[in-house]
C-alpha cells in the first residue's frame, strides 16, 4: 500500500498537470524540480491538453505485480502536442492496429490494483485513439 504516493501524484494522474517554465516557457511533463531546457527552477502548474500521437509502442502479455489483471495491454510513448513524451497505456483500441503517428487523446482509467485484501485501485491517465470524425 502506497497511499501517500498515490495521493501526491493525483494532479498528474487525473489531469495531466505538469509545469510551464517561468523563465523559458518550456512545457514540462512529468513535472521536474529544475527545467530541462534552461535549468531554471520550475514550479508553475500547467495542464496539458491531453492530445498527442503515438511515438512508439509495444504489447505486454504478462504484467508485473499490480498489472496482472490489466494484461495483456499496449503501452506507448505518446508525444503530447505541447512537446513532451509521456509513458502510458493505450485503451479503447477495439482491435484497431496501433501505429507510430496515430493520434490519441487522454482518458482517465483504472491503471493498477495494489494487491491486498483492502484492494486499493489506482486511477490515472491512459490514451485512446482519436476517432477520424473527431480529429
Amino acid at each position, binding site marked *: 500500500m502506497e497511499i501517500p504516493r498515490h495521493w501526491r501524484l493525483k494532479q498528474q494522474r487525473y489531469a495531466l498537470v505538469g509545469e510551464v517554465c517561468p523563465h523559458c516557457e518550456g512545457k514540462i511533463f*512529468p513535472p521536474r524540480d529544475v527545467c530541462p531546457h534552461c535549468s531554471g527552477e520550475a514550479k508553475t502548474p500547467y495542464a496539458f491538453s491531453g492530445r498527442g500521437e503515438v511515438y512508439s509502442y509495444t504489447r*505486454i502479455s504478462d504484467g508485473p505485480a499490480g*498489472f496482472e489483471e490489466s494484461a495483456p*495491454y499496449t503501452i506507448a*510513448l505518446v508525444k503530447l502536442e505541447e512537446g513532451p513524451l509521456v509513458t502510458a497505456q493505450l485503451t479503447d483500441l477495439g482491435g484497431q492496429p496501433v501505429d507510430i503517428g496515430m493520434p490519441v487523446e487522454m482518458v482517465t482509467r483504472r491503471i493498477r490494483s495494489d494487491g491486498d485484501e483492502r484492494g486499493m485501485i489506482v486511477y490515472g491517465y491512459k490514451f485512446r485513439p482519436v476517432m477520424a470524425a473527431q480529429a
Partner: protein
Amino acid sequence: MNSEVVIAGVGQVPVGEHYHLSLRSLAAKAMLAAIHEAGDIRPQAVFAGNMLAGTLSRQSNLGALLTDNINLRGVEGTTVEAAGASGAAALRLGYLAIASGYIDSALVVGVDKYTDSVGADVDAALAQTLDSDYELMAGLTPVAQAALVMRRYMHTYNVAHEAFAPVAVNGHARAANNPNAMFRKAITVEQYRSAEDQVSPLNLYDIAPYGDGAAAVLLIHSDKLEKKPDHPLVRITGSSVVTDTLALHDRQEMLAWYAAAFSIERACRQAGIMPQDVDFFEYDDACSIYAALSVEAAGFARRGTGCEFIAAGSLPVATMGGQKGRGNSLGGSGVYQAVEATLQLRGQAGKNQVPGAKRALIHNLGGAAATAISHVLEL
C-alpha cells in the same frame, strides 16, 4: 595518471538457476576464487555491486554480509547500486579508491539472486529500476522499455527485425565455448527469425535470459603487489560513469545513446586511445537493440547501422557470449565483463580467444543507458 590499478585475480560462477545456493554463498564462490587466484591477498575493501537483493532476497547491506561471510570482518565494505550497471559501478569505485591512493587493494564483486523470488513480484522488482512514478506506474517493464526503443529505431532507420539476428547468433556461438555461460548452444539465423514474439518487436532471442550469478575481481595497486601471480596482470587504464535521464520519455533524443557515447569517449581519452584501437568490445546486450546502439555510441558504426557492423564481424564483440549467451545476472553483469576481458587479455579464453588481444573496452548499462559505465583494460 601514473597510478596503475591492476586486476590480480578473477572469479566467477556459471550464470544459471542456483536454487541450492544462497546470495551470500553464491558471492563467496566468486570472491574466494578471485582472492585465491591473486595469491591470497586480503583486500582492504569490498565493493559489492547489486541491483535487487533488497527486494528479491529481502537483504540489504551486502557490504557487511558478504564481507563477514568470508571472514573478512573489519574490512571496509559497501553496496553499490546502478540498476543493470551495478557491477561496473562497483568496479569503478574499487578503481577510484585505489587510484586515489587511499587504499592499496579492493575486492569487487557483482552478485544477484534472481531465483530467490518468482512470478509477477520478480517483474515488479525489475521494474523498480525504471522511473517508479511515471514509468512503472503505467505498467512499463525494462524489457518493454527496450521494445519501445527498438520499435522507434526500426521506424527511424528503416531497419528490419531480422537485422538484429547477429547479436543473438554471436552471443550463443560464443556462449557454447564458455563453461560459465547459461546457454551453451549455438543458434542459427533461421531459429532467430522464427522465434516466438515476446514483447514486440522483441522476440525470445532479443532478450538476454535472467539468472543467478556472481563474479569478482581483486584489484591492487601494482606497486603494492608483493608476489606476482603466475598469470599476466591486466591494467585498468580508463574508467568512466555517465548518467542520462532515468525515464526514457525525458530523453532529448532517444536514439542518441548519449550517456553511452560520453562514457566510452571519456574512458578511451583517459587511456589515451580511440575506441577503434581496442581488440574487442564487451557491449551490454540485455536486449539486442542495446548492442546495436552501443556500437553506434562507440563510433564503430554510423547511426542505424550498428547491426550491420556486428554482422560484419570485423571487431570481436561479446566474446564470451555477452548477456545473451552467458546470461543476465543483473548486478553481476558488469563484473562478468571484467572477468571475461581479463581472461581474453591473459590468453585464457579457450576457443573464444581473440588472438593477440592486448586491449579491451567493456561497457555496462543501467536501464536504457540511464547509466553507462565504460572501462578500458590493457595488458
